[in-house]
């Protein structure tokens, strides 16, 4: 029986190659996108699921509640760890640790040095009580008891001591930063499952007191919070997490900073469950290379997958019911020969499953390709090997069954309801099949495609708007290069400065901190006391640089002057801050005193507003501080070029690089162009755009395949009508109009429904931006025309073929 079904199914597929191809390819597109996106969702949702005590592990973090909103810091003040250790019986383990970034580590046995080891922390045995590592050498109890002890991960052990037994490594000496002598006391296996606990080298916490972390440890009191000083805890199994939180609240209250409280600021300790760490954008994980997974991105990706899958299924339903008349005879015969309705439904569902499986096989191949295209979205750890995981396999099978049911059930029911005699006497043809449902489904497909088209155009418009909008300062032909902080001496710095100045293509050089717009900010709390009005407390962003800085970036002074010399702190404020202070005219602000960190800083100038970050955010109060009053050594060289174009740019860069190499022999030369930085502000938006482009393309392809199928079917069904009309004298054009009219009206209806949906969707998306492009009507018109043209092209080809057929032939065969 089953064999017979498969035979019939296969031969049916084979005999209707075009329709089968349409069905399989549209399902395959939907499925492969679903597979890839499903893998991404699965990947990100299965982080740190393997720890035996995963539900009891928390990271304690700090939230600062201020009148301007909340600020988050993944660190806690260092004494909290000790306080919790003494304090609480409800905690099974407390693991304070410090993240650190050593410059290099030397293996004293082989005398080899390794640069910039990452994922290094200071920790004690509490860390290994919270997280269960497998010990390959040494033991949890003693490994990090005393100062100058070091535990390596298996990976690092292999890197530093190639071809050595783990037990032989024990006792070997390693030296960090030329000064800190460490003895290896243990080797632990790396976690093999997906995890955000990525640490590789563990230095005993007691070492911190005598190393570069001294300041973080010793000077740290209850009032300081350093993101390097973090804390994991594990609650006891019978303890209530709420009580632990209460204990933390109590500690926060006991040790609150009276100064902060005066400003209305409050510190809270927050227990971040390990399970939430992967998605929590407030606190970040420890792996800075990979972007944090975003739930909202995953959800929108999921929607895209769902839509594409739906579109594929709709093609299936449409084409299957359209083809029903072809299968009608088979159904009639089977019924008269004893087949029951149920058997027929199973048969058709089986056929659908066969098709779906074919599509699945195609789509697995496709998804490897898609994994490449979407590599920007895809975390590095995600590979096609995930396909072999049992959960994924079960998901794939379930998905196939769901798709089979979704797309096969309705056609199966329609087909199996045919009355055998009606079918056998050819009464079923054309008149009473379910054209209306097919129309709804087609309209639905076109709505989705249309929404995608409009969204793509508008997102593209917004991005180009952002990139082209004036930031308020010069962004072209300006680059900056950052000197390594550890190799900075004023002497080297001046040498490089002179060398850069000597290059003819360089217009101006400035030694400063960050560029006017960047990912990094420094800020301070300021107060302004007026005689009449209430005092203004606000966070003020600070920009540091020498005298050339404002000139290089073309930032205009509206009143006052730049800093006179390097020894006094003087503020040049922007218009936003000026207005915040209550001044209408720039001149009025001059000479006023701003209080910050206990110092009195005079305003000497007012500069024009410019955007300090992407145009998503509004302009914040800012002051240009010059050199900050101290003889501080800036690390970033800002260079503006003269007469540099695409041709001589590489030459100029080369010259800069050789100047750099003469001063900093070992350090990499990384020139950052300002316009590239601005582009990077919008990486998320450009990813969205890429995603939308693909979704649009695929949605159009699937919908058009479906349309093609339906057009083929309709024209075949109407062969006789076309023949008769032709015999009676209809022209080619008239016939084409007649045949296309039906479908064009569907496209139009879809447009009418899609336009407002797209409008509100994009309007919602644009709310994240401080500067928005206009939702111009012509975008909608253009996208409607695009859809219409594509649909007409497809129909035109097909209807042309059928209307040019010789009517004698079609009438005879009918």
């Amino acid at each position: 029986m089953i064999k017979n079904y498969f035979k019939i199914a296969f031969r049916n597929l084979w005999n209707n190659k075009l329709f089968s191809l349409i069905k399989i390819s549209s399902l395959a597109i939907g499925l492969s996108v679903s597979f890839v996106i499903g893998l991404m969702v699965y990947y990100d949702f299965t982080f740190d699921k393997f720890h035996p005590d995963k539900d009891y592990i928390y990271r304690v973090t700090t939230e600062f509640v201020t009148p301007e909103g909340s600020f988050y810091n993944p660190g806690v003040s260092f004494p909290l760890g000790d306080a919790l250790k003494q304090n609480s019986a409800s905690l099974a383990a407390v693991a304070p640790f410090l993240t650190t970034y050593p410059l290099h580590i030397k293996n004293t046995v082989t005398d080899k040095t390794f640069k910039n080891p990452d994922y290094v922390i200071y920790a004690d045995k509490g860390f290994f009580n919270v997280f269960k590592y497998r010990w390959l050498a040494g033991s949890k109890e003693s490994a990090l008891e005393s100062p100058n002890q070091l535990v390596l991960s298996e990976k690092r052990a292999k890197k530093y001591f190639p071809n050595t037994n783990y037990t032989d490594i024990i006792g070997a000496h390693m030296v960090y930063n030329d000064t800190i002598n460490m003895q290896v006391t243990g080797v632990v296996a790396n976690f093999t499952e997906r995890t955000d606990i990525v640490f590789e080298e563990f230095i005993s916490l007691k070492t911190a007191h005598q190393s570069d972390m001294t300041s973080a440890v010793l000077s740290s009191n209850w009032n300081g919070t350093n993101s390097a000083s973090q804390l994991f805890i594990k609650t006891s199994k019978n303890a209530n997490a709420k009580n632990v939180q209460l204990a933390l609240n109590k500690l926060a209250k006991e040790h609150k900073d009276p100064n902060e409280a005066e400003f209305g600021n409050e510190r809270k300790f927050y227990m971040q469950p390990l399970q939430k760490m992967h998605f929590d954008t407030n606190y970040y994980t420890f792996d800075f290379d990979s972007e944090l997974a975003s739930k909202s991105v995953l959800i929108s990706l999921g929607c895209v997958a769902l839509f594409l899958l739906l579109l594929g299924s709709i093609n299936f339903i449409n084409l299957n019911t359209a083809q029903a008349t072809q299968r009608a005879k088979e159904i009639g015969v089977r019924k008269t020969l004893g087949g029951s309705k149920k058997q027929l439904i199973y048969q058709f569902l089986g056929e659908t499953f066969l098709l779906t499986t074919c599509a699945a096989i195609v789509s697995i191949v496709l998804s490897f390709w898609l994994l490449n295209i979407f590599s920007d979205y895809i975390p590095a750890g995600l590979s096609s090997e995930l396909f072999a995981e049992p959960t994924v396999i079960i998901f794939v099978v379930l998905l196939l069954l769901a798709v089979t049911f979704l797309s096969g059930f309705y056609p199966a029911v329609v087909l199996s309801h045919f009355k055998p005699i009606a079918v056998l006497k050819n009464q079923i043809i054309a008149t009473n099949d379910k054209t209306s449902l097919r129309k709804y489904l087609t309209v639905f497909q076109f709505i989705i495609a249309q929404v995608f088209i409009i969204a793509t155009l508008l997102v593209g418009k917004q991005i180009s708007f952002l990139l082209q909008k004036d930031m308020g300062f010069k962004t072209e032909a300006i680059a900056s290069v950052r000197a390594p902080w550890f190799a900075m001496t004023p002497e080297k710095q001046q040498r490089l400065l002179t060398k850069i100045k000597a290059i003819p293509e360089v217009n101006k050089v400035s030694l400063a901190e960050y560029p006017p717009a960047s990912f990094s900010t420094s800020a301070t709390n300021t107060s302004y006391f007026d005689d009449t009005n209430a005092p203004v407390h606000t966070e003020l962003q600070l920009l540091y640089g020498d005298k050339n800085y404002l000139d290089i970036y073309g930032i205009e002074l509206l009143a006052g002057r730049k800093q006179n010399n390097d020894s006094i702190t003087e503020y040049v404020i922007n218009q936003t801050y000026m207005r915040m202070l209550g001044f209408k005219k720039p001149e009025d602000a001059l000479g006023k005193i701003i209080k910050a960190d206990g110092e009195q800083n005079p305003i000497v100038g007012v500069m024009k507003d410019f955007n300090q970050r992407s145009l998503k955010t509004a302009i914040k109060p800012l002051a240009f501080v010059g050199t900050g009053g101290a003889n501080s050594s800036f690390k970033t060289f800002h260079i503006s070029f003269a007469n540099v174009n695409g041709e001589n740019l590489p030459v100029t860069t080369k010259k800069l690089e050789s100047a750099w190499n003469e001063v900093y022999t070992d350090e990499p030369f990384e020139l950052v162009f300002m316009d590239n930085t601005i582009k990077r502000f919008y990486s998320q938006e450009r990813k969205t755009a890429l995603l939308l482009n693909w979704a649009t393309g695929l949605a159009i392809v699937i919908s058009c395949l479906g349309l093609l199928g339906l057009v083929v079917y309709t024209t075949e069904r109407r062969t006789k009508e076309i023949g008769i009309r032709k015999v009676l004298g209809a022209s080619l054009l008239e016939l084409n109009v007649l045949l296309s009219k039906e479908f064009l009206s569907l496209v139009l209806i879809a447009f009418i429904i899609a336009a407002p949906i797209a409008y509100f969707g994009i309007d919602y998306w644009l709310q994240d931006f401080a500067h928005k492009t206009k939702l111009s009507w012509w975008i909608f018109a253009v996208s409607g025309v695009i859809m219409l043209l594509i649909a007409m092209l497809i129909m035109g080809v097909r209807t042309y073929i059928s209307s040019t057929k010789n009517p004698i032939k079609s009438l005879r065969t009918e």
Partner: protein
Amino acid sequence: MLLELNNIYKWVQSGGQKIFLLKDINLKVEEGEFISIMGPSGSGKSTLLNIIGMLDVFNEGEYNFLDEPVHSLKEKHRSNLYKQYIGFVFQAYHLLDELTVYENLEMPLLYKKYSSSERKALVADMLDKFNIVGKQNLFPSQLSGGQQQLVGIARALISSPKLILADEPTGNLNSKQGEEIMEIFKELNKDGVTIVQVTHSEKNATYGSRTINLLDGRKI
């Protein structure tokens, strides 16, 4: 007695008017009969045949098949009844184009839960009986009309029904092929199979033991 129709009426509503397809049909068929139903187009021949074959329903009257009251049976019982006792032969053959001759013959058996070895034996038997062993792997489109109808008859016979219903079995064939098919019916009838055929041809009607003439839904 194989079946009995008593006062069968069938009508359809058209514009508020009843149009009668069958009017007061009474018919008794004994086992072993070979009946021909004749009449002009639209006289209700095929409708009557479909009602006998339980593929169509009637509005009034009684139908007993092997002493079972068909008119009061549930759909499921009815289909079991015709599955077991009735074989159909169609004017347009209605073989499944996607299946080979062998598979077409096998199909009714699949719906009747025969074991695979039984199916093989029965199909081989039929192929043998109708001399089409050599064509078993061909598809219907590769056969002539006569050969296709041969397969159609073989398929109707394969589950050894008591009654064969044939709707113009020779309608799509040339005269020579038609004659051959009628000879086969005659042979089958001799072997004890009851046959009811609808035909336009006087000559074919003479193969039967009894002729029923219909005009505008009435027996005359």
